[in-house]
């Protein structure tokens, strides 16, 4: 399988001098094309920090992040924006759709920002809205949609510009269990169809069987759980 996203000794510390908080202990990880991973852990364990680093939104204190074997330069904000624009798709806890745009406009501006031509945007938009059963919502505004529908739109928005990596931060937190499960199943299905790396942060352990990999984080220390095993293995982390 093709390696898409690699973490090499990534750490994150906050503070300075004697008061340093190690939020993330050295992380070595590799994500492959079409692979769906779930990241779990208690609040404050470092999940969002890791997701922010993977999403090129936060610079690590040490280590290197590689996307398609290319090192990410965290000191250059413009190149980080370019990486996010071209290679990353995001799904946020509350969908974060722009309330003043229609669903179609919410999706189209992402395509335009990524440099897709109008024909391509229209095709992708039609295709994703159909796949996610959102065609009837096309001209509605986000406040006219249910929570589940909004997250389906967020999935479409994350995938529209064909990113190689999709990161989701607790996409089901604001949904009931059944709606949340449906959203995650759709997300997995669409990400696999697009052969994108998918990393989902969640608190809901009932979702775990749906993913290829389960990553667990506690006190900044990352470990990988076997789907069938009950004990943790620290394959990719070093203390």
């Amino acid at each position: 399988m093709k390696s898409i996203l690699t973490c090499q000794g990534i750490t994150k510390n906050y503070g300075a001098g004697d008061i340093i908080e190690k939020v993330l202990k050295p992380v070595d990880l590799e994500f492959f094309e079409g692979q769906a991973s779930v990241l779990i852990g208690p609040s404050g364990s470092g999940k969002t920090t890791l997701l922010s680093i993977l999403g090129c939104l936060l610079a690590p204190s040490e280590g290197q992040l590689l996307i398609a074997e290319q090192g990410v330069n965290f000191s250059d904000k413009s190149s980080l924006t370019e990486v996010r624009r071209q290679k990353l798709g995001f799904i946020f806890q509350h969908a974060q759709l722009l309330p003043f745009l229609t669903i179609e406009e919410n999706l189209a501006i992402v395509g335009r920002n990524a440099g897709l031509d109008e024909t391509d945007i229209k095709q992708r938009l039609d295709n994703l809205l159909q796949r996610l059963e959102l065609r009837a919502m096309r001209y509605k505004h986000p406040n006219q949609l249910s929570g589940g529908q909004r997250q389906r739109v967020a999935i479409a928005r994350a995938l529209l510009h064909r990113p190689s990596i999709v990161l989701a931060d607790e996409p089901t937190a604001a949904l009931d269990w059944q709606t949340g499960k449906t959203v995650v199943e759709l997300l997995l299905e669409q990400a696999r169809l697009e052969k994108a790396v998918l990393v989902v942060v969640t608190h809901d352990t009932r979702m775990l069987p749906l993913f290829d990999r389960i990553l667990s984080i506690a006190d900044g220390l990352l470990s990988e759980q076997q789907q069938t095993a009950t004990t943790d293995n620290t394959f990719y982390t070093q203390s």
Partner: protein
Amino acid sequence: MASVVIAVSTKMLSHNRMRFVMTVTGIAIAFFLAAAQIGLLVGWVNTNSAIINNAGVDIWVMAKETRTIDYGTAIPRQRIQQVRSVEGVSWAEGMLVGWINWQHPEGKNITVEVIGLDTSNAGGPWKLIEGNLESMHLPKTVIVDELSKNALGVSQIGDSAEMQGKRATIGGFSQEVRTFTAAPFIFTSIKNALEYVPYYRDDEISYVLARIKPNTDILAVRDRVADEVSNVEVLTTAEFAVRSVKYWMLETGVGITVIITAVLGLLVGAVIMSQTLFAITQDHIGNYATLLALGFHQKTLRQIVLAQSITLGGLGIIVGLILFFLACNASARSPIPLETTTTVTTGLVAFSLLCCIASSWFSIRAIFKLDPVSVFHG
């Protein structure tokens, strides 16, 4: 990317229609306030240089240190002949300006500014709506402006009143000859004026008005007149108009007050704009963070804010400009008209738009400080 900027900026603005309308209205009123002050200034400038500019002459000869046309002092009448004899001068006549009392038919006394004119009426009213200009040369006959009818207590040709204790009969009504000093202009012949104005001797006038020969250098003729005619000051029409305007606008402080009010108007507009734009940006700060996280460049977000300030400012200015032109039209025949020129209007619009753009600075600063990682914190 322009389509993204336009779509996001306009939809973000129009999302809250009431605030959008209120902001445009606020900017329109602020612009109108500033434009009205500037219009008042232009109107005053035009008013206090109108007689000079409409006289149709090239050179004005006057007593030294004359600060404005209204305060001309006596010079000997023989200066007219002296000016005529200067090389390059084709024509010269006299003009007299004096301040006296007019007795209103109801008994009250008001101060008027008498303008005594020579044979060809240079310096006289340029638009007559009733009567004949030549009637001024009839004994005890005067022409007044229609705007002064009420102040003088006259309503038609043939009406008469007392001026400095002597009878004065109305021979005609002019139009758009406004007074800056609140004292109505009374046009008559020099001969008549000398009978009314007690402090002028029969051989005295206030100004010599001259025209130069075609293809002659006006400045050279001005300097020659100044050299050859003693105890006078010589100015071109443009110079005298500027001096008169400067006196009333700057030396009396009237103009400064108007300019300060106009600048305050623009500042109020800029503050309204800045506050609203900042509030809109703050309301949407989460959305901006989302856009940053999704890979939109800071530059694009700044363009969105700038597009919003130009949209709000542009619409406010258009509405304000319409109100201003309506006010100019409505005040055209009033004693205090709002007037403008293409240059003044263009400058005002450009300055107001610049204020609007500058007012987006706080919003752009907020965007600069924005950390896209905040999108993960709700």
